[in-house]
């Protein structure tokens, strides 16, 4: 039994100092079923243990029991806000394992849908974070207004708003029409104005600054050692973006900056999302300008009966939440012998306790919000 079960020892009523609280699993700030076992001294956090697994369905076992192709729709359900990037991480790993090349038009379309995904994820996250801080409604509705437009585009491209199931080994399921690309161009042209509006809404707000600056500070050394990735790592001042490091797909053809924070506090993590949205718009503009014609999938690739040679491969991408990787071992048969997801949001939770120690209980909600977790991915 975990020590959290031994309640009488911690509830020391005579001294009245340490109180144990269970935040969640049905707490609105956790955006799912997630629990934090918190010990408090007054309002100050002295211990915090994240507890999860409520949504565990053993995604890895399910994928190991099916063919390579049949795992793609399941990856949609990992981080259910970003199905496109999940698809990409998985097909990239399979392409590495089996040595499959991807046509150029498919690479560009992958960049376009992945960056649209990143945009709506960051917009949604900032909206939720501000909502957690007490800015009820308005910022979240602004974010969701824009997110709806992206989801409408996904729907007309793939037939599904969230569970897109769009990518295949060696390319994509369907091609995008010229009309669709024009619709994306139209939307991307309007996005910078939205980011300005969204940023000006609360960036210099006194309450926001008071509640986020110097709160939940994550040092650079700890972030690296604890394997924190994504915007959260860059907020701590580490220049590590897999789009730049691995240059997977065609990311080496676009010019964009990697924004970085200085303090590693909640405010930096919030600003990081806004700045990354601007860079995403830049990538989208370039990809939409340069997209070539041609096929979107190599017709010779066997999708259904794919049997890679025995061996293993690790493929990783920069998902909106951090480094999303898939580790596959093939034994020469039609289903993966080992299928492993490297879930960025679960590993980013490793440092949750370190960030929350010494902070107020009310601030843990915002710190958790700034980590950006989706429980479908944490629990798998």
């Amino acid at each position: 039994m975990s020590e959290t079960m031994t309640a009488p020892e911690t509830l020391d009523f005579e001294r009245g100092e340490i109180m144990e609280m269970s935040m969640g699993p049905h707490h609105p700030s956790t955006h799912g079923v997630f629990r934090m076992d918190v010990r408090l001294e007054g309002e100050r956090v002295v211990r915090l243990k994240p507890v999860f697994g409520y949504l565990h369905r053993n995604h890895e076992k399910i994928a190991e029991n099916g063919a390579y192709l049949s795992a793609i729709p399941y990856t949609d359900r990992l981080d259910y806000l970003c199905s496109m990037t999940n698809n990409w991480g998985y097909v990239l790993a399979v392409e590495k394992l089996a040595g499959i090349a991807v046509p150029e038009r498919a690479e560009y379309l992958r960049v376009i849908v992945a960056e649209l995904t990143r945009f709506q994820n960051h917009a949604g996250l900032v909206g939720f974070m501000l909502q957690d801080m007490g800015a009820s409604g308005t910022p979240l509705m602004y974010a969701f207004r824009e997110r709806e437009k992206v989801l409408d585009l996904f729907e007309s491209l793939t037939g599904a708003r969230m569970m897109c199931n769009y990518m295949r080994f060696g390319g994509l399921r369907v091609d995008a029409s010229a009309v669709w690309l024009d619709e994306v161009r139209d939307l991307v042209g309007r996005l910078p104005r939205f980011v300005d509006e969204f940023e000006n809404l609360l960036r210099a707000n006194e309450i926001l600054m008071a509640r986020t600056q110097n709160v939940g500070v994550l040092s650079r050394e700890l972030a690296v050692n604890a394997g924190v990735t994504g915007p959260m790592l860059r907020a701590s001042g580490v220049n590590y973006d897999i789009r730049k490091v691995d240059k997977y797909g065609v990311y080496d053809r676009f010019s964009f900056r990697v924004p970085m924070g200085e303090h590693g506090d909640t405010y930096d993590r919030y600003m990081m999302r806004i700045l990354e949205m601007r860079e995403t718009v830049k990538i989208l503009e370039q990809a939409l300008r340069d997209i070539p014609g041609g096929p979107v999938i190599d017709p010779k690739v066997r999708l259904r009966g794919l049997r890679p040679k025995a061996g293993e491969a690790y493929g990783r991408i920069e998902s909106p939440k951090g480094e999303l990787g898939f580790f596959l071992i093939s034994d020469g048969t039609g289903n993966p012998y080992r299928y492993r997801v490297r879930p960025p949001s679960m590993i980013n939770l490793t440092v949750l306790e370190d960030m929350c120690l010494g902070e107020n209980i009310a601030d843990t909600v915002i710190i958790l919000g700034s980590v950006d977790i989706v429980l479908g991915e944490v629990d798998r």
Partner: protein
Amino acid sequence: MLPPVEEIKTQIEAAIPGATVTVISNGSPSAQHSLLLDHAHARAVAEFLRDHAEWRLDFCSLMTGVDWPDTETSEKIKVKKLVKAADGSESEQEVDEVRKTKVPGRLEAVYHLFSMEKKHGPVILRMRTADRGEGTHLPSLTPVWRSAEFQEREAFDLYGIVFDGHPDLRRILMWDGFVDYPMRKDYVPPPDDAVLPEVHS
């Protein structure tokens, strides 16, 4: 840039006396070969790789378990034997015999290392347990890379690998009262109407 794995192996063995490192080659086009470590020196090797001035493998991205169950291979061999004929006379003849060899299973822990400072990788480390029953102990690398903390807990939870030296080795996705290891290849899920052990027992 990182040298080829054979060079990494020689440097490790030169720096840490007594360490045995075996290169495990990978047949897929990804060509990500890995290094098999012995238990006694795994911590020292991990610290050496993390602090190496040129490689600086400061980022342990992925840690996971792999299950390799017991396998039985059978081969036909020809054996010379005295065979009694029908009339009672004995003569030496070649007879086919099936010989079965049992390869004991093992659990494996895999670590993928990258460098955030030098921006290269991966270097892949592996460790293998003695068997799948009692001897499933491996040294924990969480003291070297904190990022392995939750992932080693997950390998403990789903595969039953016990990491010695882990600061907080508990089940992470399954609940505490759960007994089996669901990711093992021979795991049989309970029937749908089974009464599972309670969370708050």
